[in-house]
């Protein structure tokens, strides 16, 4: 197992109370597979991703659980050990195109910096590697682009450069946090293709964090659905799209606009809105918005129960079959 997250909880001690951004989350990522973590904005996806590389912004803190990456617990690793994993074994792509790029250095120089830090290459070799990577991520004229500054590139190209930087040390796991959200639709498709291509050629695992179910359908082998800091359903991608079990997943899939569904087909939605993480409903946090909830749902958060077909679902009303 490449990555095994076990009962991870990341909390923020705020003035208004304790915000449980990630609460008792467990999942696994195998080598060379793509796992998608989906959910609405503010459900804790990004914090879960940052928790993996132990880079939660203060006052957030991993309060419980383990993040086993190749057997090493990153939740308890030293700064130095973490530094060697970040960028080396685990690459990270942020939502903002090229967020990882410093405005005062050239794109090539920054990609080169990763190679110098982690691979111990000579400056000359690092420069060549940077140019090759820029070509690998589909940027034309890599030699010239390497000498450009981030602000001279388009959003799509910046995101490509950021991806080049994230994969430069040949990580075994790439965490991509909403890599396409801030881009145009056509560029989104290109970035998805690029990630798939890189995954095939480099045999790395991808943990894809997104709320875009279209991207998920194209890339993921397994899907984790998150709601209010907890995982409510996990399933292989095909099974989840074919037959979502959790009422939240059903609502999420029902809210996607489908081509060819006819203009009068109703666009589904989930009533209500995502609850405030500081003021969660008791019991199952989804019950106020749930079409099938009853009194039993208000007692405690339902455990994630395993079901057939390697799935699991956290709902009292859904029964294993």
């Amino acid at each position, binding site marked *: 197992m490449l990555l095994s997250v076990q009962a991870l909880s990341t909390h923020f001690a705020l003035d208004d109370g304790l915000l449980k951004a990630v609460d008792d989350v467990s999942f696994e990522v195998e080598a060379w597979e793509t796992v998608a973590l989906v959910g609405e904005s503010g459900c804790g996806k990004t914090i879960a991703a940052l928790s993996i590389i132990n880079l939660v912004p203060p006052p957030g803190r991993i309060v419980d659980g383990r993040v086993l990456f190749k057997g090493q617990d990153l939740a308890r690793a030293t700064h130095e050990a973490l530094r060697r994993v970040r960028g080396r074994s685990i690459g990270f792509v942020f939502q903002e195109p090229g*967020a*990882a790029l410093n405005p005062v250095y050239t794109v090539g120089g920054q990609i080169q910096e990763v190679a110098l*830090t982690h691979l111990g290459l000579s400056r000359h070799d690092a420069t060549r590697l940077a140019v090759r990577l820029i070509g690998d991520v589909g940027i034309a*004229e890599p030699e010239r682009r390497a000498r450009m500054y981030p602000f001279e590139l388009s959003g799509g190209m910046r995101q490509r450069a950021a991806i080049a930087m994230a994969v430069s040390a040949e990580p075994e796991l790439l965490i991509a946090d909403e890599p396409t959200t801030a881009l145009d639709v056509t560029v989104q498709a290109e970035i998805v293709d690029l990630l798939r291509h890189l995954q095939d050629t480099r045999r790395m695992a991808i943990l894809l964090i997104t709320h875009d179910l279209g991207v998920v359908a194209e890339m993921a082998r397994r899907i984790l659905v998150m709601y209010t800091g907890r995982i409510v359903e996990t399933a292989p991608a095909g099974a989840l799209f074919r037959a979502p079990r959790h009422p939240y997943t059903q609502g999420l899939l029902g809210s996607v606009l489908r081509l060819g569904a006819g203009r009068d087909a109703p666009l589904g939605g989930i009533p209500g809105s995502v609850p405030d993480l500081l003021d969660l409903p008791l019991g199952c946090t989804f019950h106020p918005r749930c079409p099938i909830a009853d009194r039993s749902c208000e007692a405690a958060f339902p455990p994630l129960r395993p079901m057939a077909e390697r799935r699991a679902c956290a709902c009292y009303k859904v029964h294993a079959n």
Partner: protein
Amino acid sequence: MAGVQRNPGSNVPPRSPLAVAVRRFRANRLAVSALYVIGALYLVAILAPLLAPYDPSAIDDVLATRYQPPSWTHPFGTDEFGRDLFSRALYGARVSLSIGFLATTIAIGVGTAYGAVAGYFGGAVDDALMRLVDVIIAFPTFFLMLMLIGLFEADIVVLVLILGLTSWTGTARLIRGEILSLKARNFIEGSRAIGLPGALIVVRHLIPNALASVLVTAALMVGGMIGAEAGLSFLGIGIRPPTPSWGNMVSAGQDALLVAWWIAFFPGSLLALTILCFNLLADGLRDALDPKTLMRKYV
């Protein structure tokens, strides 16, 4: 790849933020002139022994040579001892300008390092360091300088240290603020996500981005330092005669102002000119380095 250019802008060479800033600075004629004047003053100061027509401390036949108004032989006139004021002004430039430069270097160096540490580590470290700065600021700098000068013999080195070490607090605050706001920027999180060592993040990513403010502050500060040295020397507690500095030359000319205006006039004008030029330079740098417009695609 030869032939077709898909992108019409493809022939434009990449423009670094620095190249953009240099081009914009060059367009500001006032600031460029100020830079030339400053350059000329420093050149003259460095070459003072070659340029000075007389020994700045030589006293000959006092009664015959003193209080001579500006003339071809003595362009700035002579003082009450008959010393050539032009030569003294040249040597005074060495003292005044080097004190301004060195004291600023110390203040900026200490302030930048201090502010960067406070801003980067944040939390309790930041609190402790910045409260210490508050305490230092609360202590009146001028009296601190007077006290220190009273304790030590005021030669150039001591004066540079005193001026430099009492003036870094503003820079520390400024840099801390810059670093704090930069830290919230995504690329810093990004550089942590790629596993760069903390020291490298500070030196390679935080300080260069804060450099624009550092440069502007430094340019402004050199003028201030030269003024401060002049003030102290004018009061007789800075550079002591016979070593000339513009400050003690103005001071010496004060008594004879009505009979020999030129004694105070020339060093005073040089002081004003120098400080003005540094202020103009700082203004020009600030406009050229404005980060809000520097990173735009088309400027």
